[in-house]
């Protein structure tokens, strides 16, 4: 089976960095164990510890990586993405963050995802399906700082767009890194504009930085087109 990594193998430009799995469950190759470990939402409810600074929302860290050596075609997105842990307070966030490597230190084709608890970092999630994302491409060396600034702003509710924010992603690629922030309603221009302005501020971006907004529906469509193309060329 093919999945997003087929596309990404040939296209590292990064706008597919949050490519999702195919909705077709039957295509997935996964065992129960993996699913239990990586994909089922933890039943344990995360709460702020005593005296800790509670966050407005609980969040989960995810990590995904294309396993080197294995043909991309055999990997599914959902199989490759792993939930690292959830937290409910500023302290708990730092606890995870302190024990995770910085994006710049990641090797290969890897992503960190930070999403509100209950929202999967996938286009198809109910919270995402009519949403979109702001994408910023960064030259190498900037990802760690920008990623930290981005998630601190998100966790600290600096975007001021109500419940619109879904999560953020940093994608490490060969020649560039990409950060993006996802929101629920792609059609809400006021919200997306506000997110863009906040991004500029918190990331301290130069004015000429190119920021691109991409609706997930477009991403899905592009992927499906590409997928279909690959499928066709693959002689399926």
């Amino acid at each position, binding site marked *: 089976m093919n999945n997003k990594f087929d596309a990404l193998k040939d296209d590292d430009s990064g706008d597919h960095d949050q490519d999702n799995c195919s909705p077709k469950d039957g295509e997935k190759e996964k065992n129960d164990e993996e699913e239990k*470990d990586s994909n089922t939402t*933890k039943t344990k409810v995360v709460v702020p510890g005593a005296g800790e600074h509670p966050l407005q929302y609980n969040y989960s860290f995810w990590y995904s990586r294309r396993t080197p050596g294995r043909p991309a075609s055999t990997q599914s997105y959902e199989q490759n993405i792993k939930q690292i842990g959830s937290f409910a307070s500023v302290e708990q966030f730092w606890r995870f963050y302190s024990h995770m490597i910085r994006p710049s230190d990641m090797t290969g084709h890897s992503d960190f995802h930070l999403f509100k608890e209950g929202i999967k970092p996938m286009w198809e999630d109910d919270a995402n399906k009519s949403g979109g994302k702001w994408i910023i491409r960064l030259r190498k060396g900037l990802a760690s700082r920008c990623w930290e600034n981005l998630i601190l702003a998100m966790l600290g509710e600096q975007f001021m767009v109500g419940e619109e924010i879904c999560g953020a992603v940093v994608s490490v690629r060969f020649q560039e890194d990409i950060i993006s922030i996802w929101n629920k309603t792609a059609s809400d221009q006021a919200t997306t504009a506000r997110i863009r302005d906040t991004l500029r501020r918190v990331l301290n971006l130069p004015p000429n930085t190119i920021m691109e907004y991409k609706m997930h529906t477009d991403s899905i469509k592009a992927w499906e087109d590409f997928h279909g193309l690959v499928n066709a060329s693959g002689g399926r």
Partner: protein
Amino acid sequence: MIASVMFYALYPLSRFFGRLSELWRKAPCVYVNGKEVWDGGGAVSGAQQTGLSLQWHSAGDTGPGPDHAETESPQGALEMACMGTCVNDGNDEEAASVREEEASARDPVMNDPAFSRTEGQTHSDGHSCAHAVETDAHAVYDADRMMDSSLADLYLGSGSEALLHTGSPVYDLSALLADSPPVQTAAEPLGWHFPTGLGLSQMCCRPYVQFPDVSYYPAFQHNDSIEVTWRVWEDFSESRTGAFVDAADAFDFSIMSYNILAQDLLEANPGLYTHCPEEVLAWDARLRTILRELQIWQPDIICLQEVQEDHFHKQMYPVLAEMGYTCIYKRRTGSKTDGCAVCYSSERFTQLSVKLLEFRRPDCELLDRDNVAIVLLLQPLSAHTEALSPVCVANTHLLFNPRRGDVKLAQLAIVFAEIDAMIEKCRSEGRRCEVVLCGDLNALPNSPLWRFVSSGQLYYHGLPTWMVSGQTDLSYKVHHARLVAPLWPSSLGVSDRCQYQSESQTAASGIFPVCNRQYSHDSMLQLRYCPAACVRPADLELIPGVTDKTPDPEDMEMFSRRFGLTLHHSLSLASAYSEVRPDTQSPAVSTLNSDGAAMVDYIFYSTRRSGSAGEEGGLQMLGRLSLLSAADLWCLKGLPNQTFPSDHLSLLVKLQLRSLSGSNSRLV
């Protein structure tokens, strides 16, 4: 101008008096400085430290005060006179004129009991002192008479000029004290006086007395030289840098901070006052002395601590009200009977606002102590009131417990937050506001708490709580409670910049669930390496190359210093008192009891930080009443004693508020 007098109180040789008194009369003159010493009674002078050739007599023959310094050597007299003049900063013309008047119209009854009193000395006969002085002055020390008188002038004349606030032309100490009986103690009928000239930089040699730690009574065998000085007025008005401000443009005021030792606390801690005779511990006697002290100095603002509520309302307030003070009292919370009081001269200030602070917060485990503070905003009154910025006066008595630096810091932060709120209010009206922070902070000079007040910031992360105040060294303990972020719960509503968090922020952190839990980048970063954030989450799977990172300790350290774990306040404050006496470099103390001596009382005042050019402002210190060293105080038999009615000394400074009419009248 400068009024500075050093008294050398003598050491009461009670045990030897009987034997010595005879020798005394036979051999009244003793030279020190290694030249010739009086050998009667075994009082051998030891190593001498200064070059001042000074002779002294026993008090049996002579008057006790410096104005009665007996010098047999004209050389010595000249030296002393010279010193006196030097210290007087060229004010000898004035002094000379007064001197002559004084010389002719000297009134021993006015002067001598005063000195005997102020020195806290014991005399067998107050009147004989007076007579002795007269005799000395007229018969024995003709040559030195001028000098003697000038010394008196410096103390009584010039001294009063500098010390007293406007409207008191003469230092009326003698009048105030005239009705007080001379201090007499049957058991210790005589003492020695080691009079010397005056001057702050002067050292004088006297028999040195070693004071064993355990005893407050000197061991006679270890005679050496010791220094006993009276509290002098240290004048800074001429050493100020910058242009002299026209008197009409400036507002001078004096402010006192004084822990008067609540009688209930005295009685609850008898172990601290074992060195004191009962009569100096009696409240009635202490009250009299306290009130007399207030009457002598008449500070424009009085900040008192450990004021017992019943005593204040029944006994102190009526007197203070009579003296023209408006008083604010705040009792400590709980069952405590004492508290803080601020009294200000109604003629000189009017009150803009006042806040009574209780540090006990029911919802906060940290703030479970009963200490209180008073913060008030006073508008100076003068012909140019409009041009004078308000003065925010804060008075507090922080928790004593040496182990609980965490509580002290939290209490102090509340005071700073309240001060900040008052300043902000002024600022919003386009006015500047100066600050004076008074009180017993229960922290030593250069302790972290002190440095926090002085420097405006404190990197507290990991600091053992006992170390905050510097009162006691508990480093031997195995376990140290340490300061960690957050220093206090956010429900207190005080940020680590010692400011009240804005209404919305406070509300947000207090109500659950809230719709807006916002954290700025900085506030997120502050918790970056807090202890809770450094523990590896139990449920974090170890993925090599992904989740196998550990926080770098060096990074943590650097990060903490740069981004957080630091307490700030935005006031620019300087302590009016330094930890050492400027003349002798001996540590100055503001409190002394059987447990030890230390400086814990302070007057901090606004200064304009250097570098903020163009912003004239802040308060100038014109002078202060010197503190004493522990040795000095032990020579007065510790605290409280006949002279000093509390186990603390009063702090008194004179500050100058510059008018804004000049350059920048508005500061936003």
